[in-house]
């Protein structure tokens, strides 16, 4: 009879939250997983009507997951106890629109053959896998929000990313998509290796993979900071490596190079997916990691450790500038939107630098909470960026027997007259991305600006302001072409035979307008979601000066 082993298996070890307990908070993920499984089987049905229910099943699963997250039990543990419901409801809401946008991406030619009388061959269809991968990716994204451990975080991040590599490759039949998929995969693996190395160093520096709880990274680092030693070389290096590796997911400098190529090579619908899902995963990861470090350094005790702050500062400034300046030079709408998504990552990094803007434990005030601003911006960005990509996904034209998407800004000319719904959607979303009041994008930027000013990051605010001015140039081209110019003869775009895409575009444009009304309530939700908890038992390393020379984790634990 081996009682200790049994105790471990039953989860009765001295973990902060045993797995059986954790499952209560993972109900949304489980619902999504069940939906994924159903989609995987349903999508292979020989019956056409059953096959076509994939999107409906996905949307139902996402809606149920969102409801489960909104009305689920309140989470007690974790670094950011309030993060889960906010992030998961946001993921479910944007996820529904994303699934609507990706409808009809795969199997169009194959389904055409089948409807003309060809036999259905399950091996040739990609529908089941495509929807299942989209849902797997969204499940991974929700799991990132639930993460309280480095290993969990890594697995969830990879669950988010791995399906997207396949989605890019099978999104169109053109070789360009396969090239994009291969590029995305190899650079993604490179990024993953990098942050895995960073995680390993964090483990080496602290002796634990838990982000929060007794003896966790948060506590070890807090004890080290309290004893005046700083983070230590290894932990700092680990954090910097993790952040740089994760910057692949959020498409920030220095790992942004893939973005325009991959977004251009993938179908527009999948680009919309890529522009939100990995980015949200990356930002949630960075927020969770840095919340374990805490914003209690610096002279005022409300900043990140200086090396981390400088790294993020340089990354934010470069990301904004590179994204916006290169976007100005683009002719292709998709490349322009890809660079714009890089720039938006730069804006959001500013909020990460600012942090919760208060001492740990207290919920920050609205004006100074950078993390709330990031979460709110993620929401704004999710809707407005999706609308812009959805317009590109809706419109297509046939040239030489091949379907073509909108390529250049010239293709958008006169869209408000030829395709009023899509034209105005593009105008609204571009204006919102630009940050024109009173649209949603303005409020997103507003809270980022106020939090940065509140934290005294004036130089960064100036860079942000300059970048918003640069961004106006290319966003106004996206506004002017459909609204003011008249269309060239011959460039006639028709709607793709996937009505859900049109509805997704219209819904995003509507949310850009309508979500302004509850913006105050939403930022309050985001504010509640980002109350960083203090480590459970604040420790002081009481060892003498001889002890403090060694910064290894066992020494810190011994000092407790």
């Amino acid at each position, binding site marked *: *009879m*081996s009682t200790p*082993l*049994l105790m471990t*298996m*039953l989860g009765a070890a001295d973990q902060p939250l045993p797995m059986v307990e954790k499952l209560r908070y993972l109900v949304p993920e489980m619902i999504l997983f069940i939906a994924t*499984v159903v989609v*995987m*089987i349903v999508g*292979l*049905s020989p019956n056409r009507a059953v096959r076509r229910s994939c999107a409906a099943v996905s949307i139902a699963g996402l809606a149920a997951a969102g409801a489960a997250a909104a009305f689920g039990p309140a989470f007690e543990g974790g670094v950011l106890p309030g993060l889960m419901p906010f992030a998961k409801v946001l993921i479910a809401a944007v996820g529904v629109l994303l699934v609507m946008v990706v409808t009809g991406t795969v199997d169009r030619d194959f389904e055409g053959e089948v409807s003309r009388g060809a036999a259905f*061959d*399950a*091996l040739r269809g990609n529908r*089941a896998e495509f929807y299942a991968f989209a849902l797997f990716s969204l499940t991974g994204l929700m799991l990132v929000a639930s993460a309280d451990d480095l290993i969990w975080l890594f697995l969830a991040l990879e669950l988010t990313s791995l399906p997207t590599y396949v989605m890019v490759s099978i999104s169109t039949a053109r070789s360009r998509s396969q090239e994009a998929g291969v590029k995305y995969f190899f650079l993604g693996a490179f990024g993953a290796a990098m942050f895995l190395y960073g995680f390993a160093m964090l483990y080496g520096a602290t002796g634990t993979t838990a982000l929060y709880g007794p003896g966790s990274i948060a506590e070890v680092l807090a004890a080290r900071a309290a004893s005046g030693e700083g983070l230590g070389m290894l932990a700092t290096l680990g954090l910097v490596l993790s952040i740089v590796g994760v910057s692949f997911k959020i498409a920030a400098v220095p790992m942004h190079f893939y973005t325009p190529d991959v977004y251009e090579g993938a179908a527009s619908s999948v680009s919309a997916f890529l522009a939100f899902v990995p980015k949200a995963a990356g930002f949630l990861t960075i927020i969770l990691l840095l919340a374990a470090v805490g914003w209690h350094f610096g002279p005022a005790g409300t900043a990140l450790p200086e090396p981390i702050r400088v790294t993020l500062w340089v990354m934010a400034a470069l990301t904004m500038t590179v994204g916006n300046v290169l976007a100005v030079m683009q002719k292709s709408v998709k490349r322009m939107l890809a660079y714009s998504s890089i720039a938006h990552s730069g804006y959001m990094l500013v909020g990460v630098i600012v942090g919760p803007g208060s001492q740990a434990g207290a919920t920050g005030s609205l004006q100074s909470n950078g993390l709330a601003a990031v979460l709110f911006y993620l929401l704004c960005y999710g809707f407005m960026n999706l609308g812009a990509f959805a317009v590109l996904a809706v419109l297509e034209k046939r040239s030489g027997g091949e379907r073509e998407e909108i390529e250049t800004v010239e293709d958008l000319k006169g869209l408000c007259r030829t395709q009023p719904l899509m034209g105005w959607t593009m105008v609204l979303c571009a204006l919102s991305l630009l940050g024109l009041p009173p649209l949603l994008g303005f409020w997103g930027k507003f809270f980022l600006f106020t939090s940065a000013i509140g934290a005294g990051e004036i130089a960064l605010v100036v860079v942000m302001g300059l970048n918003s001015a640069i961004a106006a140039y290319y966003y106004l081209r996206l506004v002017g072409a459909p609204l003011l110019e008249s269309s060239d003869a011959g460039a006639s775009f028709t709607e793709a035979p996937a009505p859900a895409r049109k509805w997704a575009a219209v819904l995003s444009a509507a949310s850009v307008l309508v979500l302004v009304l509850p913006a105050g309530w939403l930022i309050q939700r985001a504010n509640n979601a980002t109350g960083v908890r203090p480590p459970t038992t604040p420790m002081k390393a009481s060892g003498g000066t001889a002890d403090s020379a060694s910064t290894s984790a066992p020494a810190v634990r011994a000092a407790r």
Partner: protein
Amino acid sequence: MPLPVLAASELANYLPVGVLVLMAITFAVANVVLSLLIGPNRDGATKADTYESGMLPVGTARKRFNVRFYIIAMTFLVFDVEVIFLYPWAVTFSNINPQSPEGGVFLGRVLFFMATTVIAYAYGYRKGVFRFD
């Protein structure tokens, strides 16, 4: 304790390992030598060929395989990994007191886990992996 005695006593722990290494070497050498001495010797072109699991090792290296092999390998992997998880479970399960309620919970969990792998089987079946024509 004097150093030589300590070293000797510690080295004594490795005696089984030493015996095992000796046996392994003896077995390998003896097999080669014995088959050289008493085995029949039938040489030929086929005998001199590289053994490739029954495949003809001649021809282009970029030969195409039927994609079915790959899908079946993937399906096999699902059940392969499942078995890996069943072993530690089985080892622990025998330690559980039959009277305690944990036994049912333990059994239920592993049955649920096995049910999830049925999904992979259902997917493979629908995809036509097991259809040979």
